[in-house]
C-alpha cells in the first residue's frame, strides 16, 4: 500500500486537485484508491463532495490529523487498509495541518505495511503573496515537507508572477520538484499525476 499525502493551505485547491486527478491515477496505474479526508470544521464538506463524485472516502472532521486527531488517523488508516486493501491511500489533511507532523505520526502506524509515502503540497499561486505575508513560517514548514509542490491556479496569474513565486520558493532552500498547474482548467495534470504516482 502506498500513501499520498496531499497537503496545502486552506483554499489552495486540494479537493479539486484530488477530484481532477483521481480518475487518471486509477486508470493509468490500475490502482484501488481510498481517500481519507480531514476537515477542520465540525461538519466535513470535502468528503461529502468526494463521495458524491463516486470516490471511496473516509471522513475525519472536527480537528486536525497533525495534532488532535493524530491517533485517530492511525486507527482510520489501519481500518481502511484492512477493510478495503487499497493500493493507494490518498490523505487530504485540513489546510492548517503541518505535513511534517503527520509524517511523524505515520511513523507510529501499525497495520498492513506502507510501501511508500509521498508528500505533495498544493500552493495557491493567486494568493501566495497574501498567505506568505500573513503566515510566513507555517507556509515555509509546509513547503519544506514537500517532495512535490503543485503551483495551482496558474491560470489566474501571469507567467511572470508564476515564475516569481517559483523563484522565491527555490530561494528559500526547498528542493522539491515544482509543477505549475490548474486543477480547474486541466493544465499540466498529466505531469501532476506522474509526479504523484509515477
Amino acid at each position, binding site marked *: 500500500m502506498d500513501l499520498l499525502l496531499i497537503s496545502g*493551505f*486552506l*483554499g489552495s485547491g486540494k479537493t479539486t486537485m484530488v477530484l481532477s486527478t483521481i480518475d487518471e491515477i486509477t486508470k493509468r496505474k490500475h490502482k484501488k484508491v481510498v481517500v481519507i479526508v480531514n476537515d477542520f470544521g465540525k461538519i466535513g*464538506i470535502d468528503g*461529502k463532495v468526494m463521495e458524491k463524485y463516486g470516490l471511496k472516502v473516509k471522513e475525519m472532521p472536527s480537528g486536525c490529523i497533525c495534532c488532535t486527531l493524530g491517533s485517530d488517523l492511525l486507527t482510520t488508516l489501519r481500518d481502511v487498509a484492512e477493510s478495503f486493501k487499497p493500493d493507494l491511500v490518498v490523505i487530504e489533511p485540513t489546510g492548517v*495541518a503541518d505535513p511534517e507532523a503527520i509524517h511523524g505520526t505515520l511513523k507510529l502506524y501499525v497495520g498492513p505495511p506502507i510501501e511508500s509515502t509521498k508528500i505533495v503540497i498544493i500552493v495557491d499561486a493567486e494568493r501566495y503573496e497574501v498567505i506568505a505575508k500573513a503566515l510566513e513560517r*507555517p507556509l515555509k514548514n509546509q513547503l519544506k515537507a514537500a517532495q512535490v509542490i503543485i503551483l495551482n491556479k496558474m491560470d489566474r496569474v501571469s507567467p511572470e508572477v508564476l515564475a516569481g513565486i517559483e523563484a522565491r520558493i527555490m530561494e528559500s532552500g526547498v528542493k522539491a520538484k515544482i509543477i505549475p498547474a490548474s486543477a*480547474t482548467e486541466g493544465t499540466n495534470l498529466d505531469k501532476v499525476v506522474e509526479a504523484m504516482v509515477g
Partner: protein
Amino acid sequence: MITDDFVAYAGKVHAHFDRAKEPDEIRSLVSSTISMVAKECMKDGAHLIGHIKCIAEVDSGKYIACSVVSAENDAMCRGELDGSSKNLNLILNVLIYGLDKPKVEAIVVRSAKSVFHGKSTHVKFENLEFEGHEHCEDGHEHDH
C-alpha cells in the same frame, strides 16, 4: 497554521420557499450567501480568509458545493441541480483569521437573511458547533 486568531465555524441554513425555485436561482442564492459572508468578515475585521465553503442540497438530493477564498473573487461552485425545489439545506464551514466565533455566526446569519430576504422564503439557522445543535427561526435573536 492554527494561530490564536484562527476560528472554524460550522452552521446550517434551512430555507423553505413558498414557490419552488429553479436551479439557477438556487445556485445564485448559495453563491451570493458565501460571497457576502466573505465580504462581511473582511469588513468586520478579519485579516485573512482561510476558506469559506458550503454544500447545498435540494429536494431531489442533488447538490452544489461552493467555496470562496477572498472577498474580491466570486464563489466557485461545482455540482448540478435538476428541477425546481421548495427546500434548500445549506451547510457552511467558515475558516478564518481575525474574528471570534460569535462574530462569525452573526455574520453568517446576517448575510443569509440579507440574501434570502423578501423572496417568500422562510429561513432557519442552526449552529453546528454544539452537541444537540441549537435552532433559531429567522428574525429571532439569540445568544450562545
